[in-house]
């Protein structure tokens, strides 16, 4: 593969900066931090308070280890994207591209469905206890579909201020709850992990790694990130997408760890008994006019979820464009129809799963998710590098022959 960007056919305004990709990845990851996965919550209900203590001090261990694993898993992809400006699917032959794209699309669709389940679970447990599923699924997918029609630029432009709002909310919450925080309630994370048992902690680490959506978003979007042209050597293009991951990981880790400090310092051992500690903590805070801050948290969760689903639909369209036809990346009617079909499939799937979350904890689903991670993060970059080198070699040979 040569170093020229294959996406030049795309309009320049459809490209995003690496800062915007950073914001998008951060929103996806932050959503997972504040709204834990429903299967974990069901595990809580199943095993009882002591064993289902997701947000206890052991979370420091699980977060640190899972972030370290994710960083290692991301490494091949980062190395690839630091060298090549296109996404990892670009150098593959058509048939192989289709196979990998199918896996990624399926995983992204699952991610969209799962996000709806997360929002549903959060709303039903907090502010809308009698929410009818259809009134959740239709508006959420309608908004996400509308957002996907508006393109990746639109979503990226929302994401940047959204990250700022999320960070600001955490800071505001910290300041408001400062007087209620009691550091005596914090205890050793290692001790907590030992008490809860290696099997439980390992299970959570696996769940964190398997449920990481940022990986798939990065694969789809790394090709639409603007490159930087080396001013000294005019023709050398410097890819920038990898920087987004380098900035996003530390930010999310710091936010997640700090939130866990807040939960434990305020709620103490009671943290084991709550499903959404951020919501519970926010109910203790107070603006003068508003009794509680939980409305703001709920709004952030809903808008964050819509952004995430929108992003998945856009990623699906980009992957389809990469494998089937470039027409599908545009705003042409055919692209809109395909996105509509994808949204309807995800909506029906989500509607069918609402209220049956334990299904998502089935071992087969977990293994499938882990397999997706392995394929996307390890196998795909490896094959891509082989094909990219082969293409480059062929191109050089062709040049020599012609000369």
């Amino acid at each position, binding site marked *: 593969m040569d170093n020229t960007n294959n996406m030049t056919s795309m309009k320049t305004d459809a490209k995003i900066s690496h800062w915007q990709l950073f914001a998008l990845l951060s929103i996806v990851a932050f959503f997972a931090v504040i709204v834990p996965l429903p299967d974990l919550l069901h595990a809580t209900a199943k095993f009882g308070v002591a064993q289902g203590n997701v947000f206890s001090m052991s979370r420091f261990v699980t977060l640190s280890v899972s972030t370290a694993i994710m960083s290692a898993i991301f490494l091949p992809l980062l190395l690839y994207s630091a060298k090549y400006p296109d996404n990892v699917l670009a150098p593959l032959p058509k048939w192989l591209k289709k196979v990998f794209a199918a896996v990624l699309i399926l995983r992204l669709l699952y991610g969209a469905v799962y996000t709806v389940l997360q929002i549903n679970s959060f709303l039903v447990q907090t502010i809308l206890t009698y929410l009818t599923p259809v009134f959740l699924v239709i508006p959420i997918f309608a908004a996400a579909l509308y957002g996907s029609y508006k393109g990746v630029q639109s979503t990226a432009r929302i994401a940047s201020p959204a990250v700022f709002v999320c960070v600001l909310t955490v800071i505001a919450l910290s300041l408001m709850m400062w007087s209620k925080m009691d550091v005596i309630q914090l205890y050793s994370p290692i001790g907590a992990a030992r008490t809860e048992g290696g099997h439980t902690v390992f299970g959570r680490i696996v769940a964190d790694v398997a449920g990481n959506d940022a990986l798939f978003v990065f694969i789809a979007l790394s090709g639409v990130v603007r490159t930087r042209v080396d001013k000294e050597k005019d023709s050398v293009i410097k890819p920038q997408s990898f920087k987004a991951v380098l900035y996003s990981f530390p930010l999310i880790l710091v936010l997640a760890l700090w939130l866990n400090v807040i939960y434990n310092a305020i709620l103490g051992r009671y943290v084991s008994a709550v499903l959404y500690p951020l919501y519970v903590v926010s109910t203790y805070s107070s603006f003068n006019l508003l009794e509680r801050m939980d409305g703001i948290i709920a709004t952030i969760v809903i*808008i964050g979820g819509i952004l995430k689903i929108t992003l998945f639909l856009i990623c699906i369209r980009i992957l389809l464009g990469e494998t089937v036809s470039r027409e599908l990346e545009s705003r042409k009617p055919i692209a809109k129809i395909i996105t509509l079909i994808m949204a309807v499939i995800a909506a029906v799937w989500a509607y069918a799963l609402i209220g049956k979350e334990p299904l998502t904890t089935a071992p087969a689903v977990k293994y499938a998710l882990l397999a997706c991670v392995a394929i996307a993060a390890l196998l795909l970059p490896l094959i891509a590098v082989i094909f990219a080198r082969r293409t480059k070699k062929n191109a050089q040979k062709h040049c020599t022959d012609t000369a």
Partner: protein
Amino acid sequence: MKENLKQKVNFKDNLSSDLKTTILNLKELMDDTNDFVTKYAKVAGCNICIITCETMVNTAATSTLIYPPLTALDMSGVQLQPGELMAKINGELLIAVEQNQPKTYEELTLVFMSGFAIILVDGVDYGVAIGLQGFATRGVQRPLIHDNIRGACEAFCEVLRFNVALVRRRVRSPNFVSKITKVGEYSRTDVAICYFKDKVDKDMLRQVEERLEKIPIKMILEGGYIEPFLQDSGNSIFTQIGITDRPDNLAAKLYDGRIAVMVEGSPFAMFLPLLFNEHFQTTDDYTEMSVYASFIRLIKYFAFFLCMLLPGFFVATTNFHPELFPQHILFNILSAEQKTPFAVLSEAVIVIIIFEVMREAGLRLPSVVGHAFSIVGGLVLGDIVISVGLVSGPIVLIVAFSTIASFVVPDLYPSISVMRFAFLLAGGVLGLLGLSVVAAMALFKICSMSAYGVPYTAPLSPFTLKGMRDYFVRRGWHKLIKDDMTLDSMAGVVK
């Protein structure tokens, strides 16, 4: 009319060298219109005719600038050939600065209707048009929609050339360029494009010129007629073209690299592209202390969100999430709501519709009945709807406050009105979920907008640090002048 005349004489035809034929053809072409005034005379042995459009020409100027030199020429006793006379009038006599030579009936009728006096000489197949416009106009007055406390109080008027002059007076730089073109096949309205040649993006200028050329409307009476044709997306509730009635404001916008479009007959100038944050910037921001200006600007942003979201949030909270209210406020709301027959959402819809009707009526009604309207609308209606128990006090308070807040950002009023209603309905039906869904959709719309390659949400997103010095707050002039910030220097601008 044009088609009927095609058999005899056409607008595209050249003028006849026979004076009588030319006048007859003109009268025929203009269907013997009443304001076609002719004055025949004999000067230096040649028959001449002066044509003017009644009330479009300054009669005093005509009698002091045209008649005396022609009379003096005749009195001198020289005898001239028609061509010599025309050359003398055209080249030697000092009458007026604005002067041209119409050669066809089309050219002649255009200058005639623009308020020129046209001198025709028997035996010459062209005329001399002299700019002596003197039609009645409204003078320069105070701004109507962008009034201020400190600074100039001059506003644009209906005469295009006056408006260009008002900007020129503030910018004595050779870089300020104004080009006038005619738009509208029937109205042939003068439209001026103004810009700073060292600041404007040439590609954007070319696009604006091309779009103006392609405007299909035949009658253009105001800037609003051509506005949709200059926008990238015609059906958005947020406009991408700014409107101002202040020449100082327009000069500042041009300095940032924008292009102004002014239409003859309109006391408003359009500038493009417009960014979202510009709705919150006023002239006073730059004349007041920066701290105070920043404070006011933050208030404006707060008011904007409040007026859009408050009714919807109130209805959503009352219906779905009452726990968000402090207890004593909740009890007050409950006791007020118990006395009314309608649901909170219905009450809010009723009150908003009443306010919108009153606003619209207030705009259209003659000013002499304004006091009566205020009493009936404000006191009687407002008081009675609460006392008879149709709607509750809190709802009236919320909607009234939201309406007042919406006037803090007057340029966004149309968008706010629509969005407020959407938020209200969504909040009433689905609570915070509905509000969030509509908010997300509105954000998608706003963030997807770009005009001439400039993102509507710049410089906030895509983020440009330099742009933040005049966004939520206004930094002091020492900081603002450090480095000029033009449209080109913003992140995300596509050229």
